[in-house]
């Protein structure tokens, strides 16, 4: 039962991709820390809110579909995918009726499976991780002395965009209109080495007009997510009530794109547009751009050494940005890391 293409009257079907951070390292360290943030209440409370939110989202429109991706320590994994609309359409009426005969609480049974599936798959994921204990334990040990945990959100966004691309191609072929959007639930801090893949993913989302809604669940703001939301015209939320996550989700992320136009969505009041330094991973506000040398943003303290370093070993393709200003706005310094090798 495909809708007519001109669906100005009917509600939009939405495809929502939820990227939820499940990295055990993050949750180990964040639990109980940073009073009043959702992250301090642990992963299970966040997952609970997410699943309730998904059920509300499904209840809004029978044709709403969702995908949940776990952003784990070792990569990204699909936890749950709704069947894409065009696939179920082929079932025929009888199968459709049979499906609806045992519906639960107003939800399509395929949709009400979301919660249990998510929890089961996440359990499997954690079991697999502890199973491969030899390498896992070693990494955990090495990891734990070093700064705050981070998770690969750039890869997760890329994965989500690939999925959107496929869903849109399928739906366009079937004459339907698809309105995907992405919701990120990030508890850890940004990893500055992700800067380039993150930016590539953000621009790709912008070109496909896919809004990225970002929730910073931890203590710190996430400049990457601020920029993602700002550039793709999504919402950026940093909840201040730890137990109110569900309410934040329901009020910002549940509506389809058409209804969103009538809402006043929370946005970051300021956006940190500073580029980050490749060598030291520190944000920089005034840069010297060296054309035809490696692109780096360097902090002033090491400026001379690095200019010399890059001029001696120029990498032809790249451009350099060096911070020369002694009056640069002093940014919140990220933990010291050794400079990346050229």
């Amino acid at each position, binding site marked *: 039962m495909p809708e007519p293409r001109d669906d100005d009257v009917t509600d939009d079907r939405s495809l929502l991709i939820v990227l939820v951070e499940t990295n055990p390292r993050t949750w180990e360290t964040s639990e109980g820390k940073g009073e009043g943030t959702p992250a301090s209440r642990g992963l299970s409370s966040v997952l609970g809110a997410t699943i309730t939110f998904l059920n509300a989202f499904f209840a809004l429109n029978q044709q709403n579909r969702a995908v949940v991706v776990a952003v784990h320590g070792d990569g990204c994994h699909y936890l749950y995918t709704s069947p894409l609309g065009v696939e179920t359409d082929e079932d025929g009426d009888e199968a459709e009726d049979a499906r609806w005969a045992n519906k639960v609480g107003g939800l399509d049974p395929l949709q009400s499976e979301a919660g249990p599936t998510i929890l089961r798959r996440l359990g499997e994921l954690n079991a697999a991780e502890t199973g491969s204990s030899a390498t896992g334990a070693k990494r955990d040990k090495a990891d734990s002395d070093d700064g705050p945990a981070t998770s690969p959100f750039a890869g997760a966004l890329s994965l989500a965009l*690939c*999925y959107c691309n496929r869903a849109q191609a399928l739906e366009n072929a079937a004459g339907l209109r698809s309105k995907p959007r992405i919701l990120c639930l990030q508890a850890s801090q940004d990893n500055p080495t992700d800067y380039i893949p993150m930016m590539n993913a953000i621009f790709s989302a912008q070109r496909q007009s896919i809004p990225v809604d970002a929730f910073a669940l931890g203590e710190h703001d996430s400049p990457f997510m601020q920029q993602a939301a700002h550039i793709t015209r999504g919402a950026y939320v940093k909840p201040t009530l730890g137990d109110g996550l569900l309410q934040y989700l329901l009020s910002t992320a549940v509506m389809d794109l058409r209804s969103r136009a009538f809402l006043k969505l929370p946005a970051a009041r300021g956006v940190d*547009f500073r580029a980050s330094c490749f060598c030291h991973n520190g944000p920089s506000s005034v840069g010297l751009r060296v054309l035809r040398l490696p692109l780096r943003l360097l902090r002033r303290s090491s400026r001379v050494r690095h200019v010399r370093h890059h001029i001696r070993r120029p990498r032809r393709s790249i451009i350099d940005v060096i911070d020369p200003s002694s009056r640069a706005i002093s940014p919140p310094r990220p933990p010291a890391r050794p400079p990346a090798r050229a």
Partner: protein
Amino acid sequence: MTLIGAEGGGSESDSDEIDAERAQASLRAWEKKYQSERAWEDLEEDPLTGRLRVNARAVELRARERRAKMASAALRGGAAKGMMRFAYVVVDLSRAANEEDFRPNRLSVVGHCAAAFVREFFNQNPLSQLGIIVARNGVAERLTELSGSPEAHCAALRNALDASGDFSLQNTLNAARTSLKSIPSYGSREVLYIMSSLATCDPGNVWTEIQATKAAKVRVSVVAVAAELHVARRLSEETGGTYGVSMNADHLDDLIMAHAPPPPLAEDATKSCLVQMGFPQKKHVSKDALIVGTRGDYVCPRCSGRIDELPSQCTVCRLTLVSSPHLARSYHHLFPVPAFKEYASRNVSAKESGIVALECSACLASITDASLASECEHCSNVFCFACDIFIHERLHNCPHCSCATHVESRKKAS
């Protein structure tokens, strides 16, 4: 006035004869390529309606081939890219543009392509500047000066689409060269001709103008709508540009769009130098704050002046201001995703049968045709054809490699 026609050719020297012969040979090669293309083999009969349609798989395979060719060309050309480009697009609006060999006529097709090119140019070269020159009635008219706003160019071009008179190569070249003379030494200077005319009507000797252009280190590329014009080919060869003749409207679009990514940089064309620029932060200004000058949202990091939009120059201290996302827009040229390998090339059983049962690691689509599966060399994940294209042409990230480098960087840090 000298009139140089398509068949008349240029001057008389021996080197010209050799050039002409080389051009002949390449023309023959071109025809050969066209003959071996066997376009009819892509057609198949639709089992339901009985109509002919283009075989989707053949088209996909051809697209992959084209992309592989582009990727290898990019590698060969070296990764050096001129990041700040100053370019003029010369649109030929002489009476030849009214010809109706394209539907509805050349003028509208060229206008459409040029507008699309302007948008794509700024997408791929965010800090560069572009201007438009139109050639009609024998003179060059500078439609827009060099600037960084795509919408202004497109609007000006839309209003100017009206063709008449002759085309003058010398006048347009002169207009572009004199304007490009004043740009700073770190920028690359380029001119792109979109040429419908088969003749040029010049007030003097066009060859002296070409030599002057060459001396000014301006790279001139020509996309011919109709047929090859000797003087235009010589112009692009002399200045290090490219020359292309379109076969149909799609090909014309391809040829023009090929100029949107930054060209390889000639070693001596630009010097490396330092340009100071600031990355303002967006800070909301309260309603009752007392501010002299503009009430923009952005704050200059050097003098704390307020700026309306980016990229621009600070009105107070003249610092060049950009946002870091602006800069980041061109990063994917610097770190392109290496081309994926064919899955079948490594997996012998898949190669023999041609059939596989795989799931795309990015979008979960099932892949049954082995020739359409590709594999990332770094992370050994398998991707479907649609994702392969999407990752290389639009996303510029391998999803699993992004995760892997993240994990890697954490290990290294500890």
